[in-house]
C-alpha cells in the first residue's frame, strides 16, 4: 500500500497529471472515430515520447488506452457508429435508448460502468499482477477452442424470435469471417490483395449499423414534421441505477479475465455480457428496444478487459492486444523490460502507472459524465443533418484506415447488406458474432490439432477445456430440463412458440 501511495505521488505531479489529461482526451477522440484506434495512436506518438520521462509517457499511453474504451461507446450510442470493435455491442441497445430520448442515461451508465469496471479491474491488477500472471500461459489452443465453442453456443440465446433468421444472420457472418489468407491460401478474396487480411470487424459493424440504418431510414423517412426526440431528464433515475449496478459487476467479471488471457480480447466478453444480461433481465421484452442493462454490462466488460490486459503485460511482458504490444515497444525503447523483475527493478514506474490508471479513470468520469446531456442534445439537430453526419463520419472512419477508396466500396456493399437485413428482419448481432468468432474458432482448432499432429483427444487434454465442456453440457441439460417442465420459463431461449421445435435442430447445426 505504501508503494501505491508513492505511486500516487508520481502520478499526481503536475507534469504527469497533464500527460494523463492529454492521454484521456486523445484516447477519447480516437476512440470516437472508427478506423483510428488507441493502438495506432500510441504507435504514432512513440517518437514524441523519446523526449519525456518514461513515467510520463507510460501514463499518457495508459490514458489513451482507457480513453479509447470510453470514446468508442459515445458514437455507438449517439450515432450507431461504433468507434472500436469492443463497443460494437453497445450500439445495439445504446442507440435504441438514444432514439427514445434516453441518450443521457445510456451515456451515463456507460461512463459510470466503465469507471466502476476500470477501478475494480485496476484493483485486481494491483493485487494479481505480481503473482498470478504465469497461470495464463498454461492455457493452450484446446482451452481457447473450448471457450470459443461456449461463446458460439451462447449465440443461440440472441438469435431473436425467428431462429431461422438468426441462423441466416450468423452464417452470413461466418462467411464474411472466412475472407482472407490466414490459412496461407486466399479464400473468397476475388483476387484482391486488399481483402487478403480479411475484412475488418469495425468496417462491417459500421456498415451494417450506421450505413444500413441510414439507408433504411432514408427509405422510410417520416415526411411529416418530426417530433423532436425528447432529451428527457439528464440523469439516471433511481430505477436506472438499480438496473445498472449488477450488469456493471457482471461485466467486470467477464472483462477482466478475458483481457488477461492471451487470446481473450475485449470483444468476446462484451457480447457474453450482453447475452447474460438479456437472459437474466426481468424485462427481456425491452431488449432490442433500448434496455439499459445491455449498455451497462458490455461497457463495463470492455473497460475491465483493458485493465486485465495489463496483468500479463507488466507481469511477464506478454502483450495480449495490439495496444499492449505497442506500449511494450515503448517500454523497450526506454530499455525497460517488463517481467517478474519489473516490480522490483522499476517500482516508481510500475506503481506510478498503476496509480495513474486510477487517475485516468477518475478523469474520464469527471470529463464524460457532465458531457452526457450535452452530447444527447446532438440528436436534436435536423434529421437530414444527423444522417448526413453519420454517413460522413462512417466514410471518414473507413477511409482513414488506408486512405483507399476500396474500403469505402466495402462500406457501401455491407451497408446495402445492412439495409437488406432490416428489410427482411434479420437480427444484426448474430452476424457480428459470426464475423468475430468464426476466424478465432478455426484458428484455435487448427492450431490445437497441428500441435497434436491430428490427435483429436488433445481437445480435452487441458483441465480448463474439460471444465468449459462441462459447463456447456450443464447449460444444455438445464435447457432441456426447463423445456420438459413445461416450455418457456424465464430462461427459455427467446420465449417464442417455435422454440420447441427449432432448438433441437439448432444444436445439431452447432455441433456440425
Amino acid at each position: 500500500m505504501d508503494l501505491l501511495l508513492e505511486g500516487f505521488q508520481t502520478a499526481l505531479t503536475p507534469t504527469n497529471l497533464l500527460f494523463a489529461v492529454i492521454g484521456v482526451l486523445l484516447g477519447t477522440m480516437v476512440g470516437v472515430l472508427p478506423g483510428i484506434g488507441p493502438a495506432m495512436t500510441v504507435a504514432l506518438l512513440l517518437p514524441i515520447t523519446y523526449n519525456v520521462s518514461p513515467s510520463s509517457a507510460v501514463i499518457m499511453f495508459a490514458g489513451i488506452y482507457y480513453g479509447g474504451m470510453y470514446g468508442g461507446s459515445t458514437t455507438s450510442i449517439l450515432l450507431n457508429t461504433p468507434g472500436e470493435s469492443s463497443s460494437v455491442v453497445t450500439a445495439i441497445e445504446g442507440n435504441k435508448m438514444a432514439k427514445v430520448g434516453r441518450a443521457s442515461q445510456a451515456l451515463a451508465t456507460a461512463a459510470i460502468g466503465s469507471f466502476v469496471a476500470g477501478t475494480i479491474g485496476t484493483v485486481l491488477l494491483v493485487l494479481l499482477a505480481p503473482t498470478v500472471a504465469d497461470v495464463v500461459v498454461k492455457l493452450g489452443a484446446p482451452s481457447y477452442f473450448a471457450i470459443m465453442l461456449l461463446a458460439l453456443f451462447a449465440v443461440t440465446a440472441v438469435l431473436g424470435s425467428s431462429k431461422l433468421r438468426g441462423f441466416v444472420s450468423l452464417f452470413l457472418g461466418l462467411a464474411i469471417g472466412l475472407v482472407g489468407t490466414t490459412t496461407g491460401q486466399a479464400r473468397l478474396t476475388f483476387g484482391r490483395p486488399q481483402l487478403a487480411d480479411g475484412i475488418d470487424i469495425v468496417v462491417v459493424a459500421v456498415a451494417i449499423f450506421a450505413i444500413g440504418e441510414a439507408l433504411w431510414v432514408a427509405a422510410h423517412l417520416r415526411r411529416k414534421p418530426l417530433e423532436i426526440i425528447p432529451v428527457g431528464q439528464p440523469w439516471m433515475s433511481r430505477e436506472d441505477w438499480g438496473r445498472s449496478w449488477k450488469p456493471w459487476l457482471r461485466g467486470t467479471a467477464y472483462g477482466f479475465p478475458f483481457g488477461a488471457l492471451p487470446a481473450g480480447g475485449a470483444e468476446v466478453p462484451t457480447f457474453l455480457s450482453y447475452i447474460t444480461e438479456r437472459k437474466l433481465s426481468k424485462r427481456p421484452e425491452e431488449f432490442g428496444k433500448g434496455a439499459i442493462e445491455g449498455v451497462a454490462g458490455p461497457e463495463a466488460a470492455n473497460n475491465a478487459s483493458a485493465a486485465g490486459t495489463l496483468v500479463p503485460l507488466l507481469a511477464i511482458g506478454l502483450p495480449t492486444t495490439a495496444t499492449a504490444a505497442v506500449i511494450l515497444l515503448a517500454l523497450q525503447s526506454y530499455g525497460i523490460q517488463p517481467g517478474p523483475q519489473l516490480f522490483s527493478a522499476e517500482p516508481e514506474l510500475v506503481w506510478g502507472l498503476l496509480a495513474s490508471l486510477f487517475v485516468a479513470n477518475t478523469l474520464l468520469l469527471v470529463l464524460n459524465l457532465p458531457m452526457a446531456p450535452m452530447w444527447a442534445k446532438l440528436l436534436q439537430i435536423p434529421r437530414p443533418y444527423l444522417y448526413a453526419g453519420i454517413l460522413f463520419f462512417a466514410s471518414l472512419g473507413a477511409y482513414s484506415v488506408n486512405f483507399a477508396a476500396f474500403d469505402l466500396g466495402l462500406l457501401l456493399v455491407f451497408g446495402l447488406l445492412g439495409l437488406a437485413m432490416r428489410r427482411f428482419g434479420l437480427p444484426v448481432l448474430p452476424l457480428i458474432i459470426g464475423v468475430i468468432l468464426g476466424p478465432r474458432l478455426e484458428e484455435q482448432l487448427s492450431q490445437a490439432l497441428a500441435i497434436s499432429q491430428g490427435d483429436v483427444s488433445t481437445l480435452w487434454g487441458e483441465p480448463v477445456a474439460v471444465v468449459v465442456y462441462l459447463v456447456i453440457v450443464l447449460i444444455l441439460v438445464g435447457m432441456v430440463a426447463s423445456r420438459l417442465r413445461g416450455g418457456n420459463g424465464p430462461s427459455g431461449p427467446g420465449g417464442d412458440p417455435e422454440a420447441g421445435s427449432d432448438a433441437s435442430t439448432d444444436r445439431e447445426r452447432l455441433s456440425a
Partner: protein
Amino acid sequence: MMYTRRGVLALAGALTVAGSASACGVTGGRQDASNRRLRMMIPNSPGGGYDQTGRAAAKTIEDNDLTGRFEIRNVLGASGTVAMQRLLNERGADDLVMTMGLGVVGAVFTNKSKARVSRMTPVARLIEDQEGILVPKDSPFESVDDLVATWKKDPGAVTVGGGSTAGGPDFLFPMQMAKTIGIDPRDVTFISYDGGGPLTTALLGSKIDVGMSGLGEFEGQIADGSLRVLAVSGKERTEMVDAPTLTEGGVDLVFSNWRGVLAPPGISAEQRRYLVDLFTTMHDTEEWREELRRNGWTDNFLTGDEFGDYLQEQDTRVETTLKELGLT
C-alpha cells in the same frame, strides 16, 4: 431548433478558423533540391517493424535537414503486397520511397502478385535482425545438435512456432534450416502465431517445442531465464544474447531478416543517385547510430547495384523455398 442550428454553424465556423489559422498550406512545399517533399510508404501498421525503421530513417533525415518533410503513409494489406502493387503503379514517381524487408519478398509470392522486388528500383538496405532459435526453460534441447538430432529422427514430431504467416521470415528460416540439415521442408510441423506475443505465450507454456523469431520481442524472457536461445542465425554473434551462431553450431546456414528502402521502377538515374546519396548521408549521422542502438538493430548498409544484386538473390532464394513447399 434554431438554437441548435446556430450551434452547428458556430462549430463548423470554429473548425474552419482553427484549421486555417493553425495549418494552412500543410501540403505545400518548395521543390528545390535541399527542401523536397518526399513520400514514404510503409507496408505495415504503426508500431510494426517496417514502421519503426521507416519512421526512424525519416526522422533522422528531417532532423538533419537533409531534405524537406517526409509524408509517411502506412499502406496495409496482404503483408505488404498491396503497398508493393502501389509502388509498381507509381512508375516513375520521383518523390516516393517505400520501407520494406524480407517478409515483403515472401508475401508477394504467397499472394501471387506480380509486384516482385526485382522489378523495383533498389535504394538501400539499412538494417538486419537476426533470427533466434528459442526453447522454453525446461526444454530437453540444450544445443543446436540436440535439436538437429531429434528433428532428423522424426521431422514431424518437432513442433516449430513462428511469429509470421507462411512466407514470412519466421516461416522461411525454419524451412531453409530444415533443408540445410536434410529434412524435407514439407515434413516440418510449422505453427503460425499472430506475432511475438502469442508465440511467447506458446513457448512459456511449452505448447510448442521450438520457436523461431527475431529476438527483440523476447529480451525480457531471455533475461529472466524463462526462455533459452540455442543459436542465432546471423553471420556473427549478437551482443544481445549469449548464443552461438548456427554456423558455429554445425549448420551451414546464414539467414538474416533485413529491412531496406525501395523506389518505384522507371525513375531517372539522377533521381536514383539523389535517393542513394540521401540515405548514405543519413546512415553516416550520429542520430542514426543512436536509433540503431536504441532499437537494438544491427547495421547492415548496402546501396545501389549491390543492393539490387542482393535483392535478386533473395527473390530467387525465397521463390525456390516456397516453390518446394507448393506455396507459390
